[in-house]
């Protein structure tokens, strides 16, 4: 049991790495930099100044046209030892955690045998009593490891390790190198808090920590400005948008948690599973739908999907870690973790989950068809695949458990991380070639022959995500589509099937636009004319090694057939024979081939400019292209909503404060002043006035007394 008892190491090692980097190696880094400006302010301000002005004595680009980038991404001539060691420490500790989690995985699946099997309930790893008021409230900070947690742990630590390794090459010479690694470690820690959480309280803490870390990471380039001509926000704005949008989902999350707590008195998942059967089922359904709202926010489902595309403003390793593999998967993990609660609720809860996922899948896929920005296509692809995961969770039922959804999460983590890291490799190369930030696919093309490793791995990932037979996506995605049909949701089946076709189409479109084009080999698939400037070449080995590793994983991860049974004892195992003999599989494959084939035929043979002209000349196509390009105008709708409704209410409240509240306060003072001034005229200084008042009072009193005496006898 020692193997499981020490698994708190996986949880706390990234935290340790964060602390060491922030207080140790980063301080070393900052203090060892040459002082370019006299430090007029001391302490932390001095360090930030050094970091921000670290490039004043260096001009890596040396061209006047890149003036605008001076404060976008501050660079140094070379990294200081402190920064390098930040990277080493981050990678080393994450490697240890990754090895440990792989050991746990291999042990519990039976591949190796160094400890006994894990009990189904899992093992309590760490527990701390936060507040104990006896029977009414007992708040524990408790962490538990079980099969589901091990799967998620493996995904998180592996992707995090590869991303940190990759960042050593991608963020090279950056002034914020050490800060970046500290944030990556913090994020990994937050994600593991969610993974290990035993009760809603800890999960919510991890939820918010993940939100914080993603805010820090998205907004990593502090001074980078917005680019309105490319419809891009500044990273700071994108970070705020991400945080606030997920916060909106968190409101629902908290309400759901509170409803559950109010009715059962506990946050603990295991206790809740047994107590919710005594709850009113309608109330439970409502509570679980609220809890799902948190997942809608965090996993970027419609209608709270708007933060994910702008979040691409962060560095590409961040996009890979957060928006491909881990943070957005937190919502899926949460639903999987609370799967028994959803099962105990009415069918409406699963229906909501599945339909939100389905609608999101097709919505995002449609938008991705029309995007030009390389990372934005991937962002919408992520949203769409997350929709698939929720469909998988929604239609599975208690026989399959959270298996299908989590399996897609597992495979998706690898190929989506590969897609993003590959995109990062491309952007890195183009940045070096053109000395500008190029993300528009219309300025790429034919990179296959110039960056072969990146292109090959990207192709592997594209095929995986499209559900090409025998790659990992084939197993995970098609089983979800098949389950939708088996569950009787024919509409969902049709939607997911159509979306699979769309996915294949836009992914191959992106591949060909970036790496191929008319005139390349294999009929336009590989190489060809390069539409941009400069001369891009392959990225260094620190970038390509993670790509290769992930490509292998994208193929191999799909072959874990016992996944469903690993999570839910008694669930059916996949088998190749069953899969190949099912007609639904072939329908899915056919749809994928149609999508791939059409994209190949269109973009491989026709020049992009001609396609664009074709679309522009036909009003129906042009209008629909515009709608998709503007993302169904949802962003504009939200902007208008905030500008007119929210700010309108704010103006009303401000007016209320200025006129009514201040009016009352000032009015009271004014009343006193005016009445004082007017009443002072009573004092005329003349005795006769006073006598008149006196005797007037006498007269009034006399009459009063007479009246009272006569009538009130």
């Amino acid at each position: 049991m020692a193997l499981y008892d020490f698994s708190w190491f996986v949880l706390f090692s990234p935290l340790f790495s964060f602390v060491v980097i922030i207080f140790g190696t980063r301080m070393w880094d900052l203090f060892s930099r040459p002082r370019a400006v006299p430090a007029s302010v001391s302490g932390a301000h001095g360090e930030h100044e050094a970091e921000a002005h670290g490039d004043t004595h260096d001009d890596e680009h040396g061209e006047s046209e890149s003036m605008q980038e001076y404060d976008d991404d501050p660079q140094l001539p070379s990294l200081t030892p402190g920064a390098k060691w930040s990277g080493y420490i981050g990678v080393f500790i994450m490697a240890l955690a990754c090895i440990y989690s792989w050991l746990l995985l291999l042990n519990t699946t039976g591949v190796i045998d160094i400890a006994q099997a894990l009990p189904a309930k899992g093992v309590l790893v760490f527990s701390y009593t936060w507040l104990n008021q006896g029977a009414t409230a007992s708040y524990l900070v408790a962490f538990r490891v079980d099969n589901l947690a091990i799967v998620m742990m493996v995904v998180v630590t592996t992707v995090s390790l590869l991303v940190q390794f990759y960042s050593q090459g991608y963020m090279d010479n950056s002034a914020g190198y050490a800060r970046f690694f500290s944030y990556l470690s913090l994020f990994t820690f937050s994600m593991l808090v969610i993974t290990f959480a035993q009760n809603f309280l800890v999960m919510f803490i991890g939820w918010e920590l993940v939100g914080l870390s993603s805010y820090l990471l998205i907004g990593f380039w502090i001074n980078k400005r917005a680019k309105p001509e490319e419809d891009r926000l500044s990273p700071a704005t994108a970070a705020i948008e991400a945080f606030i949008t997920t916060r909106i989902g968190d409101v629902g999350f908290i309400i759901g948690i509170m409803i559950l707590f109010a009715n059962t008195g506990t946050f603990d998942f295991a206790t809740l599973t047994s107590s919710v059967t005594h709850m009113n089922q309608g109330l439970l359904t409502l509570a679980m739908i609220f809890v799902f709202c948190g997942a809608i926010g965090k996993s970027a489902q419609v209608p709270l999907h708007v933060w994910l595309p702008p979040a691409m403003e962060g560095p590409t390793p961040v996009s890979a870690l957060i928006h491909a593999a881990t943070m957005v998967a937190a919502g899926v993990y949460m639903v999987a973790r609370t799967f028994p609660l959803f099962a105990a609720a009415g069918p409406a809860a699963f229906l909501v989950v599945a339909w939100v996922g389905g609608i999101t899948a097709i919505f995002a896929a449609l938008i991705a068809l029309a995007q030009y920005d390389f990372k934005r296509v991937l962002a919408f692809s992520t949203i769409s695949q997350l929709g698939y995961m929720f469909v998988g969770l929604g239609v599975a039922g208690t026989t399959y458990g959270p298996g299908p959804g989590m399996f897609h999460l597992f495979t998706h983590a690898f190929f989506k991380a590969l897609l993003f890291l590959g995109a990062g490799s491309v952007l890195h190369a183009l940045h070096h070639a053109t000395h500008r930030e190029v993300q528009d696919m219309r300025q790429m093309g034919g990179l296959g022959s110039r960056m072969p490793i990146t292109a090959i791995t990207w192709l592997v990932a594209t095929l995986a995500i499209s559900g090409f037979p025998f790659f990992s996506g084939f197993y995970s995605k098609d089983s979800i589509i098949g389950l939708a049909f088996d569950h009787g949701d024919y509409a969902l089946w049709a939607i997911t099937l159509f979306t699979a076709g769309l996915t294949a189409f836009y992914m191959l479109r992106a591949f060909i636009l970036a790496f191929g084009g008319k005139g390349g080999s294999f009929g336009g698939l590989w190489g060809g004319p390069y539409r941009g400037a400069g001369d891009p070449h392959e990225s260094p080995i620190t970038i390509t090694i993670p790509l290769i590793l992930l490509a292998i994983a994208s193929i191999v991860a799909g072959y874990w057939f016992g996944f469903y049974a690993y999570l839910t004892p008694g669930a059916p195992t996949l088998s190749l024979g069953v899969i190949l003999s099912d007609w639904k599989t072939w329908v899915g494959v056919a749809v994928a081939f149609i999508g791939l084939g059409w994209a190949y035929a269109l973009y491989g043979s026709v020049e992009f400019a001609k396609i664009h002209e074709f679309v522009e000349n036909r009003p129906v196509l042009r209008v629909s292209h515009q709608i998709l390009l503007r993302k169904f105008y949802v962003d504009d709708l939200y902007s208008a909503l905030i500008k007119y409704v929210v700010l309108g209410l704010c103006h009303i409240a401000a007016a209320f404060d200025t006129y009514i509240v201040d009016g009352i306060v000032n009015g009271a003072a004014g009343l006193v002043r005016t009445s004082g001034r007017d009443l002072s005229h009573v004092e005329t200084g003349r005795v006769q006035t006073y006598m008149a008042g006196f005797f007037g009072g006498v007269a009034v009193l006399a009459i009063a007394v007479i009246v009272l005496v006569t009538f009130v006898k």
Partner: protein
Amino acid sequence: MNLATLLFWIVAIILVGAALTVVTMRNIVHSALALVVVFGMASGIYLLLNAEFIAIVQILIYAGAVTILVLFALMLTRTNNLRTDSNPTNKQWWLAVIISALVGAGIIYATANSPHAIANSGNSAGQLPVGISNVVRIGQLLYSPTTYSYVLPFEIASVVLLVAIVGAIVIGRED
């Protein structure tokens, strides 16, 4: 209607008429002279009420000293338009009318309908001991050292008069 009642009505009407004259005349000397009539008629009322000493004191003090004081004051504070408007009314005279009317009506109504009617028709029989006149009785009441008397207020009243004399001199002297 016996003699007392007749006398009362005559004196009362002249009294009230003179009082009205005091407060309505434009010429203040006319008012002062009407004031003398008021004092005189008041003395008559006292006589009707068997208060001879008060009646005589009224004539002596009021109609004698106070009137002279008032006339001297009028002489020393003479304004130029003595005949026409040396005794004007101020702008809130209507308020004074209302107040006075209300107070008067209140008092009369209260006294007329009061349940504490003291023997309304009585006289002063038996108020004086046998063979002693009103003046003697007043003297006994004011000065007697042995029986019930008002010696102390009397002494204090003399101090008041002293203070008043000194005060009047101090206030009124030129410096």
